[in-house]
């Protein structure tokens, strides 16, 4: 049945070797995760802290919420922009699985676009009008995460497509669905909390609103600590509830699969230890920066592990179906050169802006 329902490989062939697309997919996905984590985790944290502030604008909870949403002015746009590339490469690499998966979800997949707009504009409305908009934004982004997990699980399990064809909501009953959702949500909260904490520590040590920034850093640190602790528990649950065949393939995959997984687990535990070493992060700026760097590395390593698990899920359907490769090295080379040039342009632009402060008539 599975083989029968699988569409054919695209006749045009891959315009580059599969390893190149896998690298680009994972690389751009990590880039996307940085901003997605800020968007999702930041909005959820801002919402809770906004509620905790109970309408008072002068406390650390309100200040933390404001800062997170200020970051989101940039993060939401950049999350969308950086999300375009992995969406492009996943279509090239997993064409027949990805399109089939999204079609089986139909309006749910389309709804992601609507929720993205609602989430973004609600975040803007919150800044001007307060009211319920932050809640609307949080629910929108959370639902988007749920949709993305649903698409992922449907597209990697062609065996169960007839079930999803009968009712896409069946994906909610997949044993890995909720642990996966939680895995993304907790990671995003930990990341946003650490970024907020890192910034508050910098400000406090620079002598700027020391009391407020120390309180914000402490709150953010606790958020990161609890999110990471829960993440480790959830991560093990997710590993255990993976389909038996996939789990065994991970365990039997040698260094290739066990390497990233082991590293990710060690990094996770290491993060927990680092977070537990202090309750006042302002006193340990080096530890804060190190923890943020370690979390970013963990996100990257977990993305590699996630990509490998996807391959293992799909292995029964992909073995014996090697796509033809018709490389377009010239245009790839142009892309690579322009990517470097684009990043250099962004760097030069940001540096020029940071070194050109002005005020009054001298300012733009």
């Amino acid at each position: 049945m599975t083989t029968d329902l699988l569409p054919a490989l695209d006749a045009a062939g891959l315009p580059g070797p599969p390893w190149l697309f896998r690298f680009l997919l994972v690389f751009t996905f990590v880039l996307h995760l940085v901003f997605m984590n800020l968007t999702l985790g930041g909005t959820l944290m801002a919402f809770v802290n906004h509620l905790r502030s109970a309408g008072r604008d002068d406390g650390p909870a309100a200040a933390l919420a404001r800062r997170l949403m200020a970051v989101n002015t940039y993060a939401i746009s950049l999350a969308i922009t950086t999300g375009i590339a992995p969406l492009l490469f996943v279509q090239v690499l997993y064409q027949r699985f990805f399109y089939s998966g999204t079609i089986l979800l139909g309006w749910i997949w389309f709804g992601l676009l609507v929720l993205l707009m609602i989430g973004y504009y609600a975040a803007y409305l919150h800044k001007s009008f307060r009211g319920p908009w932050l809640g609307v934004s949080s629910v929108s982004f959370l639902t988007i995460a749920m949709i993305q997990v649903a698409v992922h699980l449907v597209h990697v399990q062609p065996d169960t497509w007839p079930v999803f064809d009968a009712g896409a909501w069946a994906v909610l009953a997949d044993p890995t669905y909720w642990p996966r959702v939680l895995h993304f949500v907790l990671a995003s909260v930990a990341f946003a909390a650490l970024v907020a904490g890192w910034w508050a520590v910098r400000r406090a040590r620079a002598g700027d609103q020391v009391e407020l920034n120390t309180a914000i850093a402490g709150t953010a640190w606790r958020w990161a600590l609890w999110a990471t602790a829960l993440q480790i528990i959830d991560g093990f649950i997710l590993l255990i509830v993976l389909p038996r065949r996939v789990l065994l393939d991970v365990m039997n995959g040698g260094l290739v699969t066990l390497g990233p997984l082991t590293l990710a687990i060690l990094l996770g535990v290491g993060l927990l230890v680092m977070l537990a070493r202090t309750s006042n992060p302002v006193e340990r700026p080096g530890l804060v920066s190190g923890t943020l760097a370690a979390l970013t590395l963990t996100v990257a390593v977990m993305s590699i592990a996630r990509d490998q698990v996807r391959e293992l899920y799909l292995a029964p359907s992909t073995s014996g179906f090697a796509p033809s490769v018709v490389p377009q090295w010239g245009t790839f080379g142009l892309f690579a050169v322009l990517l470097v040039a684009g990043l250099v342009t962004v760097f030069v632009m940001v540096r020029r802006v940071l070194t050109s402060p002005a005020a009054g008539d001298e300012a733009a």
Partner: protein
Amino acid sequence: MDYPIWNPAIGGGMLMAWVAITHVIVSHFAIGGGLVIVVTEMLSIRRSDPALRDLAKRSSLVLILVSTVFGAISGVGIWVVAGLISPGAISALIHSYVWGWAIEWVFFIVEIVAALIYYTTWGKISKGAHLMVGWLYFIAAYLSLVIINGIITFMLTPGGWLESHAFWDGFFNPTYWPSLVLRTGVAALMAVAFMLFVALRAAPDRRSDMVRYLGWWWLGGALVSYAGYRWWEASLPETVTAFFRGDSPLLAALADTRSFALWSLAAGLAIGVVVLVIAPKLTRGVTAVVLMAAAFAFFGGYERLREGTRKPFLIHSHLYSNGLLVSQIEAINSTGLAAHSGWVAAGDDAPEAVGERVFRTECASCHTMDGYQSIRRALPTVADMELVVADDPPGSGEVHYRAECGACHGDVAYAEMVEMLPGLDEIRDDPDFVRDLNHGMVSMTLSELRSMGETVVAFDRSTQFDLRQLDRPYMPPFVGTDDELEALAAYLASLDRPADATGGGAR
């Protein structure tokens, strides 16, 4: 054609049209707005004019709110919708032009970062640095158009790609440059369409100056658009222009769309010159709305024309809009659609059930059941035949005959047809006889559509097809075995049966 099928009630084509039209409007504003805003800021510095600065600053907020998110999401939306309604087609396009899109993404990153910095650094950084950011925004935005224009125009006029399948042969195709000129003009029009609302909020003593200033941009944008359009039309092969030009265009609706688009541009140009340039004091909110509507009508009309003239292809002469490759026609006719797609093979074997799956696979990317391009309305029905034969009031029968039956029976006179049809009493006494008759007509039409495919496979595939040689050039051929053809005919015929007698139906 081997993917699961998603048929939204609104129609996949209509959903795509809504997403794509809103995207192109916003994305062209993002480009034109970038140019007009940064030039406006530059002039404000040179002339020490705070009104111009205010116009640029306020417009940059609109740019941020509209383009950085709505533009990006609706752009992704085109992929999302295309993946849902024509997965094979978008897959083929992405496999050919993934690096083009990847390059566009690079420009898009620069564009978005620059836009965010530009908006948030007003009054905070030096004028020179701010202008640099503004220019980088515009250059990146325009370069993204330079790239995507190659992919869009390739779909209508693939040029040398049909023979070589080489990236650049398709990219620099016959309509690349005219389209780039046209879209450059449109970008300026869109910028003014949005910025006019901002200009109207200027201080009363400077409002006219701001409006007239934008009027010159409008004039320039309209003239460049018109020149680009004419060049674009002149660059199209005759097989494409035959759809909407000449004494008897193949698709009269597209000829109307062309007229509508050009008259909208003419009206927008005239109103713009009179109200914005000559008498800017007359400009009110309603003027801005009218000009915006004219710009949207012209651009929307052009996009509709471009999409419509590509019918029935996604990549002209290579890939049909339902995902059928020209190269697949013979194989599917030989082995059958079910052998090609598990989604057609799986399920009930009753003819009408198979027919429904064939319909969803081959036809539903364009035809809805009762909405846009309704298949039910396109099919002959008992009610149609009653109206034609009854001719009550006199003359209505012929009108109905021309409207409902003319597409296939244009060469048969009304009186001649009535003579061949059963009488009114016979129709009412035995409607199933009429249904059988209609079933036969549907079978015959499908057979003709399959023959059309056999004609197409004999075409020279290294060049753009001359579709005028085909009876129904705006439709893909039917592909499949005799049994699948009969199953589809049975399903289509069943749509005119009372609900309790129908085995099929739209899902």
